[in-house]
């Protein structure tokens, strides 16, 4: 594949990005509005020697991805709300057993079957806390077709680098929107591979991490015979109930993501330098926010935008800094209050945090955000 310019859909950009990242296995189940990712990869994967399988359900798709990844192949699945709910158990398995993979959730209105063809941003907390038990999480939220492509590559790189699943979250508008994109020449894209052991099989401990808290990975069938289990396990991978071992493992899993927080963190600021009021918005909402900020400026209101590209781990430091600078932060999101609680937590009362929320299945328009900004000025 060469660098290309063209009209492309968000879901298609996701599939293309996956191929560039080295994804060679996809297991999925049809669900609107994510199906185009599966359809595109069913076509593209065998062209590059990869494999695609349509599984009998979302649970099986997540399981197959984990199996393929343990076989040493970069793997991905994509879904939307109801399917994302079904993936949660095996998602937790992948986190706990440290199996890299990428899970895409193209967000539609919910709960339940909800609005299959309409956008929402109501799974951001499910992405963080959907699977049971304590666990770290990495989630990225692109806001354009080009960014979907780049974030997909980044999701694979982070998953491989840190041996953990990475969630790509974007709304139906981003998934189905077509826009002109200019994609980087794939040969110029940095691709990360999972860390490999340097020791011989006899002394290999599959869950003994180095200084960066990431244990080296070796695929099945290479002479390093080991056990993988979703039970609490020790460095050998064997089940344990030893409280000290269990606690140390839990803490390492969290530390593994926390200590790489700066490497994961990604955001964009727009006209924030001298802003007195700011919008916090992600995904398609951030594009309306950008227009609102521009109009506000033309009307003499010093507005700005903080657009997180990484949603999890949350951008505490950046939001904290913003709260010191501005009078008020408007959190605009297509749900009835999810990321706003994180913003409030990080702002620690240093700025007023106001909500602009919409749960009608329609995107938030610039005028709506503009009105919210004028209200808090």
């Amino acid at each position, binding site marked *: 594949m060469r660098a290309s310019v063209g009209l492309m859909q968000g879901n298609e950009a996701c599939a293309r990005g996956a191929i560039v990242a080295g994804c060679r*296995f996809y*297991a999925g189940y049809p669900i609107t509005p994510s199906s185009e990712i599966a359809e595109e990869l069913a*076509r593209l994967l*065998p*062209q590059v*020697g990869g*494999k695609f*399988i349509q*599984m*009998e*359900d979302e*649970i*099986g*798709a*997540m*399981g*197959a*991805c*984990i*199996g*393929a*990844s*343990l*076989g*040493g*192949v970069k*793997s991905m699945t994509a879904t939307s709300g109801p399917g994302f709910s079904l993936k949660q*158990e*095996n998602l937790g*398995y992948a986190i706990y057993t440290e199996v890299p993979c990428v899970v895409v959730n193209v967000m539609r209105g919910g709960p339940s079957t909800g609005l299959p063809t309409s956008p929402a941003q109501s799974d951001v907390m499910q992405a963080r806390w959907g699977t049971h038990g304590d666990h770290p999480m990495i989630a990225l939220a692109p806001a354009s077709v080009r960014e979907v492509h780049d974030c997909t590559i980044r999701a694979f790189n982070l998953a491989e680098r840190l041996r953990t699943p990475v969630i790509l979250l974007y709304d139906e508008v981003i998934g189905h929107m077509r826009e002109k994109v200019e994609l980087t020449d794939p040969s110029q894209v940095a691709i990360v591979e999972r860390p490999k052991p340097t020791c011989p099989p006899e002394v290999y401990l599959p869950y003994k991490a180095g200084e960066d808290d990431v244990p080296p990975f070796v*695929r*099945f*069938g*290479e*002479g390093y*015979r*080991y*056990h*993988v*289990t*979703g*039970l609490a396990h020790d460095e*050998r991978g*064997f*089940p344990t109930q030893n409280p000290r071992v269990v606690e140390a493992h839990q803490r390492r899993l969290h530390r593994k993501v926390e200590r790489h927080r700066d490497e994961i963190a990604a955001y964009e600021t727009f006209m924030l330098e001298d802003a007195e009021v700011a919008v916090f918005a992600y995904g398609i909402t951030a594009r309306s926010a950008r227009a609102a900020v521009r109009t506000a400026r033309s009307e003499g209101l010093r507005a700005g935008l903080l657009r997180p590209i990484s949603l999890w781990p949350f951008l505490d430091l950046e939001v904290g800094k913003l709260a010191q600078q501005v009078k008020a932060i408007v959190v605009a999101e297509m749900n009835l209050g999810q990321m706003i609680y994180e913003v409030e937590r990080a702002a620690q009362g240093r700025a007023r945090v106001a909500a602009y929320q919409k749960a009608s299945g329609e995107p938030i328009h610039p005028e709506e955000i503009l009105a919210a900004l004028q209200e808090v000025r």
Partner: protein
Amino acid sequence: MFDYHEYFRSEMMPHMWCKGCGNGIVLKALLRAIHRLGLSKDRIAMVSGIGCSSRLTGYVDCNTLHTTHGRPLAFATGLKLARPELTVIVITGDGDGLAIGGNHLIHTARRNIDLTCLLFNNQIYGMTGGQLAPTTPEALFSTTTPYGNIEPNFDACRLVQAAGGTFVARGTVYRAIPLEKLIAEGIQHKGFSFIEVLTTCPEIHGRRNKLGTPAEMLQALAKTTLPTGVIHQASGPEYTEAYDGIIAKAQGRT
């Protein structure tokens, strides 16, 4: 003399199965079958779900994957597609493979992917303390059928055959040598091989239903009225090979 310890993870012993449990007989038959076929431990992957039988993977010195409840066939499908050169053996139980994981069993059989699935049927949810399984005989008691079971149970072999599995067999822990041979045949068969193993749970299931001593429960298996041995064998396109054809087509090589 065949040395089981060559295949065991000694650090995982003692195992967690109850005294008198039939699962150890299946484990040993499986190890003898592997030995008989001369398979390298490095090239075997064993994938299991959740339950007593599924703990088996922890005890065998090969590439082992103890997955989530009911899902080992899905994990194994991904692994086999990623690495067709590995011999992938799936260990599941009657609850894991027929209740929560029943749908995966149907579709894995339909795809005829080259996995060998051993389903341990002990008629009960043993690990969780003896609840009703889809295989519990009618009128028997479990912790969730205190007045007796009113649900008909189903025949796993007929299910898999109907779904498209190309090797379907049933063995019992009463006849360990024929079981070993069935497992070896199943591993050698190209395509989805399904072996239901009738095993015993004297501690959790037998006691409650007064089914006798562990030895008596074994002897009862000798009198099973269900067909045993190879029940169905057919040939059909194997999934990973068929997919190689897709790759050739997509790359314009055909």
